[in-house]
């Protein structure tokens, strides 16, 4: 009998100790913010273009965490959708055409002769990539431009162009190899010598 009581008391004591421990750590080590939203945000392209109908990438990330569709980011395109699907363990949907199509990456360019210095594009730029002052010519800091397109619309003189980023030798990429004809072994054409066999 006493053995049973001892066991019960020991287990109770253990439960109490661990309960206190867990309770304390849940307060002490409480995770600030929403880590999932952070993760989703880090996958988004951060163009801050608002094409998803949210005012920036972070709000969209939070909306995704709250159940918004993952296929509303045209700048991110399919790769972002796949990454998001992978992260959230949901099915990768095709890009929602309603929010725009995946376009070639571009950056804004201000035709400086035509700029009247109205600062409207500066106010529109979500990443402060446009330099200029009132009545002074404005220019886009190329390396900071995300190509979000938001500066084009407010320009009263229409002097902003979106110029696709040109591929240079340094940005050129190896293409994916074209998948060959997956023949079965017996279909293999005999007599095709291999390079270097000569």
């Amino acid at each position, binding site marked *: 009998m006493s053995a049973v009581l001892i066991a019960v008391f020991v287990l109770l004591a253990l439960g109490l100790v661990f309960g206190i421990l867990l309770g304390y750590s849940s307060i002490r080590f409480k995770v600030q913010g929403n880590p999932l939203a952070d993760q989703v*945000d*880090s996958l*988004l*392209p*951060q*163009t*801050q273009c608002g094409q998803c109908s949210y005012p*920036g*990438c*972070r709000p969209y990330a939070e909306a995704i965490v709250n159940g918004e569709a993952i296929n509303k980011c045209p700048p991110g395109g399919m*790769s972002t959708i*796949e990454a998001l699907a992978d992260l959230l363990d949901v099915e990768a949907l095709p890009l929602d055409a309603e929010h725009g199509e995946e376009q070639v990456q571009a950056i804004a360019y201000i035709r400086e002769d035509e700029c009247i210095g109205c600062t409207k594009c500066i106010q529109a730029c*979500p*990443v*402060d*990539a446009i330099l200029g002052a009132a009545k002074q010519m404005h220019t886009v800091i190329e390396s*900071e431009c*995300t190509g979000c397109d938001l500066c084009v619309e407010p320009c009263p003189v229409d002097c902003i162009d979106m110029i696709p980023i040109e*591929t*240079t*030798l*340094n940005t*050129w*990429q*190896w*293409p*994916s*190899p074209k*998948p*060959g*004809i*997956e*023949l*079965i*072994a017996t279909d*293999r*054409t005999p007599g*095709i*010598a*291999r*390079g*270097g*066999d*000569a």
Partner: protein
Amino acid sequence: MNVKVHSFHGGIHPPENKKQSTGAPIGMAPLPKRIILPLQQHIGLPADAVVKKGERVLKGQLVAEAIGRISANIHASTSGTVVSVDHHAVPHISGMSADCIIIEADGEDEWISHQGLNDYTSLPKPELIEYIRKAGVAGMGGAGFPTDVKLHLGDDHIVNTLIINAAECEPYITADDMLMRERAEEILGGIEIISHLLKPLHIMVGIEDNKPQAIRALHAALDKSELNLDIVIIPTKYPSGGEKQLIKLLTGVEVPGGKIPADVGIVCQNVGTTTAVHRAVKHGEPLISRIVTISGAATAHPQNLEARIGTPFAELLDHCGVKRELMHRLVVGGPMMGITVDNEQIPMIKTTNCLIAGNAQELPPQPHAQSCIRCGMCEQVCPAELLPQQLHWFAKGREFEKAKHHNLFDCIECGACSYVCPSNIPLVQYYRFAKAEIRQEDAEQRKADHARIRFEARQERLEREKTEKEERRKIRAAEAARNQAAKKDAAVAKSATPAAADAPLDLKQLKTNAAVARTKLKKAEKALSNAQAKGLDGVDTLQDTVRQLQTKSDTAQQAYEQAQQAPAPVATVDIKQLKTNAAVARTKLKKAEKILAAAQESGDGDIAELQASVTQLAAKSATAEKAFKDADAGTGDTAPAQPAVDLEALKADAEAIKAKVDKAEKAWKAAVESGSPAADKMAAGVDKLKAKQAEAEQQYQQALASAQVQQPAVSAARLDELKADAAAIKAKVAKAKKAWKFAVESGSPAADKMAAGVDKLKAKQAEAEQEYQQALASTQALQPAATINLDELKADAEAIKAKVDKAEKAWKAAIESGSPAADKMAAGVDKLKSKQAEAEQEYQQALASTKPQQLAADSAAESDNGPAAVTLVDMKELKQQVSIMRTKLKKAEKQLEESAAGSDTSTLTTEIEQLKQRHAEAKATFDAAEADKIAAAAQQGIDLKQLKIDAALARAAVTKAERALSKADDNVNVSELEQSLVVAKQQADNLNITLERFSE
């Protein structure tokens, strides 16, 4: 010293095909017609062109300068003229073109003056490295890494081993082999310089055992040299020439993934690079040429050529007799790692070590890839000990993260796996693709992170600006509130006592409140009945509202009634007035009788009408007489025995005298202005007249004071009520009419019914009006000279006001002069103020209660001559009077100010006070008349006040427009402004006309 040769994993033994090109010594490539120098021939940033189109350059002249740390200078490889700096095809797997400096060779091949260093050891190391950098030396093994960067490795790394890569493991290529055979001294010279810079403990030259002649040559050269180095012969195996593989072979050390050899104390240099370094230092020659192997089955004379950098492939191929009809593919570099190009105009660059013009058997097209059979042969040959098969799957499935975890980036892309793959899968291409994708993703991620930081910084900034703005606004608002409060406090202090006068309820206000409450209640009731009839929701709430409104209305009414009872005017019967009335009626009757008699005599005119009017007047006269007698009898005992002074007459006298005085004054002034000699006399006359006026006025005032009479209290209240009723009914009629009109317009079927309702209401109105008129008529007989009472009250109020003003002035003066009596004075001022407020209130009340009667009496008295309702005082005249009074007042005040220093200010002050009084009087009359006007206009559905405001606004718009126009004389928009001005004028005119029509 014998060095133990280690081994690396995997490797293959492809056919060497090196013998073809080693038969002939290094030949000199012909001078090309054109030199094409790509700005990027190395790893890192492209160089920046420093020559312009049309410029003549010499051999060895700098044409493009290195930008940044990892970059290399580019020099002209022959003398000539710069044709252009433009896009041109370059040896790159993408087949893209890039910026190149194109030089038209002049054939002279004229060197720029150059001189080597006699004793490079005397130079500080950084300067020596800079010297090498200026020569544009870049790794010539294949990657083209700027050599100076590698020579700087000694600065921050402990370099104990220098390895010279002479393995040259790829098939076909013999450039290094031939270089070693023919220029071993140069190689050793280069090694000497490099070892001087890096100070390694151990120098090793790794060379494959398939180059015995080169080994011999090196040994021979080494014998003559003081260099202490080991020539290590390694077994021939591809890819032993790979940097990491060679290090493993020679030292047994494995360079960890993601690190450079210098991290383990080893630096590798290619033999070709050592020659370039030697030439740069010893002869001052920049890197403008290199040894290139031309080989392949389609080549008639495979050999090595020393060719100028920038020579198009076509010239080299022609020189070696490449048969184009046999050539199937042109490969730049080795068969394992080289690239296929299809443009023979592509120039050779610093890293071009071999050109293979292969025929179809030699370099067949890539057979179709088949499925991986998981044979594992790729794993067997991988020199980096990776799992090529796994990497292939990951790359194919775009699982780049996993590929990365399988050390994709340790792959040296040697192609051994592809070589052995029985399914002909282009494995290396998969890895390159995967690497590129990962790199791009990383770059995008970096950019995204950067953008995010900037975005968040911006958001934060905007937020901060917003809060700052808000704070500023708050501060401003607080300041404004403080100012306002201070102002208010001052105002409160000023009007502390008069505020008490507000305490008694304003009768008028109460009445309005009651009426408003009633209207609201009725509306709510209507809505309720409507809702009930239609069975709409919210009946309960409506009922509640109605109940609430009912109580409110009741309270308002009650309050009004109470208030009405309390200050009931203490009207008294004015016997004198009655007497006067009777007399007037008598006079009128007599006049009418006279006219009648005259008419009867002459026999013309409407005698009957005249007779009727006479009878009427007679009746009136009789009533007036009777009323007088009644009153006289009623008050006979208490009636004061006073001389029957005709107040009106007195007043008229006073007015007449005043007019005379005014006239005389005017004349006098005119005389003074014109310098007439009669001015003096006139002044005397004016003075006399003034005295007379004062007398008359005094008389009048006295009479006024003595004529204290009582007024019947009940009749006034009753009359008021009746009038209010009539007005209410009138308003109802107007409303009903409006509703009816609306119904008619909208074609509602209820229009007929409404019309009937309107008629009914009209009948009611007529009834009420009649009643009112009757009451008015009945009280008219007893009508006291309310005006007298009023006037008196007004005079009292004015006098008190004047006193208050004086007292205040005195008080202020006392305060300013710091008099101790100021406190007492303040108390006195307050007392006076309260008195003033009282008097004013009294006056207002009296005015409110008597005005209707007065007006009605006026109209009744004149009812014989015209329609009673429309008789109204001539507004214009009244207004004029008011303005005349104002002007006089101002004049007098000015005079006072001017003579303030002088002696006799008291008379002026009294005069001013009088004038003030009169002005106030005139204004009150005018205001009353105007109020009536407004009421009359309101009957016609036009709010006179509103109209006036509109007119004023329109006038203001006109002035504004005019001002804008005058200001904008040089502006372009004058026509527009003019147009707007015209429009504004039109509007103002229209409104003015309407206003005039109603105020006439």
